[in-house]
């Protein structure tokens, strides 16, 4: 569904991504993990056209999106949430979702559009906050509103950038539930995450990124036993917790 070929992105002399190959299959939950600064968010920024790649090419559903602009990529069916929440804080909750809706083919009338917004707010449990300013929501609500906004573009694939960051245990459980529901709705999910419970519990496939390069890819069990992954996360030496 999303095909990434030999993708590199440099910032000055820093290689944030280096010759990365990746394929996300339709209908799966694909997770990417990696230490801080390994290039995960940069990857999302390149995929969504926030900045162009230095090298390499990207396709989505067979269409090349390497040089496409962000809103064009969104209209092709990619939605995204941000790691550091980026809501329209001075718009109401309702309007945050409403602005993201498109009636490109005129299929939807204004009334159907509003109904759809309310559906999405109900799905993200924000129905009673409808007329509040988004800036007044609490952290968990803001994260859910970002999800509702991303869903309003009716994406086939959702890019979630550390959706569990700052969440407590109960909220992470809810998030896992939401992700399973999204998959049942037919969405493909491409996830970046630090919270290992979430990744191991929910992802069909996992890729590990380190210094902009993919060092492993496979199921949760494959990844957990991969020596290169352990090295990347825990450092060069094997550490014994009892005898440091």
């Amino acid at each position, binding site marked *: 569904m999303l095909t990434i070929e030999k993708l590199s992105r440099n910032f000055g002399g820093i290689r944030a991504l280096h010759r990365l190959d990746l394929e996300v299959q339709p209908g799966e939950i694909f997770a990417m993990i990696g230490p801080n600064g390994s290039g995960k968010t940069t990857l999302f920024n390149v995929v969504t056209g*926030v900045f162009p790649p230095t090298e390499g090419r990207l396709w989505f559903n067979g269409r090349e999106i390497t040089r496409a602009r962000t*809103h064009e990529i*969104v209209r092709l069916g990619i*939605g995204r949430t941000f790691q550091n929440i*980026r809501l329209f*804080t001075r*718009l109401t909750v309702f309007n945050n979702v409403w*602005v993201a809706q498109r009636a490109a083919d005129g299929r939807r009338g204004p009334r159907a559009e509003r109904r759809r917004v309310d559906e999405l707010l109900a799905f993200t449990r924000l129905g009673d906050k409808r007329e509040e300013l988004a800036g007044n929501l609490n952290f968990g609500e803001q994260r859910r509103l970002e999800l509702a906004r991303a869903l309003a573009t009716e994406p086939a694939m959702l890019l979630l950038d550390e959706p569990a960051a700052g969440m407590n245990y109960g909220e992470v459980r809810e998030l896992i539930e939401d992700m399973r529901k999204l998959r049942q709705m037919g969405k493909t999910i491409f996830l970046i995450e630090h919270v290992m419970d979430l990744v191991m519990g929910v992802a069909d496939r996992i890729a590990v990124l380190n210094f902009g390069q993919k060092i492993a890819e496979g199921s949760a069990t494959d990844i957990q036993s991969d020596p290169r992954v352990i090295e990347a996360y825990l450092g060069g030496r094997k550490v014994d917790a009892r005898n440091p």
Partner: protein
Amino acid sequence: MDYYVAVLSIIGMHILLGLSVYVVAITGQLSFGQQGFYAIGAYLAGIGTALWGIHLLPAVLLGMTAAGVMGFLVGFPALRVKGLYLGVATFGFGEIVRLVFLNVRYTKTIGGKLVGPNGAEGFRHVSYIYDRGFTQAQYLAVIYTAVIIVAGFVYFLERSKLGARFRAVEEDEVAAAMAGINVTAVKVFAFTLGGFVAGLGGALFVHYSTYIDHQMVTLPLAVSSVIYPMLGGLGSFWGAILGAALLIFLTEGLRFLQEFRLVVYGALIILTMLFRPRGIIDEAMVLRVRAFLRRQVAPSA
């Protein structure tokens, strides 16, 4: 009486200037160049009635359209700069327009008078409304018809999805693009609209004053145009209207203070920026008013 008609006329035209800044500002672009569009509207509409002898309405539409087209053209380079730099760049545009009109000579002798833009002499004898026997009060009605049309348009824009998208772009361009919004189109459209509205203001002004020259469209006009919506509030188009009315009444009412009134003016602006950074009518106030109005409509709810 004539005095109040004059003050209200000025307020009407400055409301248009304030609204032209407002529609651009709610996409996150602060323009200090709206007086340039105002000048384009004024000169072209004036040329229309005074030199070509066309009627007021087509002349005003001509000035407005020219300013709108210029707004569209300015919208593209404006995409490249933000914040203070955009302020400086747009002011640069305003100065270019001013200096062009300082140098343009296009005159005819009509009825023994030299009519038309005449360089530093300015553009005199735009006497259409006086030739046709309009009274000041009648022309006031013309001005406010235009204000009501524009304000109504902005009201509907603001409540539409496009208006919400304007504000989304203001707040976060990356997030807006990720919501599928064509940020470039929104920003250029806002500048086009701002050009039209400022051009309309200028076109009405030149027929009111019968005269315009380059000194009328300099930095002070740029600054006051920006201050109207910033003081009045960026939460609603009412802010620009309130700001223009308040500041002009204040300027008139404080004449007894002579030059000290500018101190009051400055203090007011500083206080607003300190205590209400989004102006008097900010987004939170708009929501409170809407909630209040809803309760009035449906008291049981």
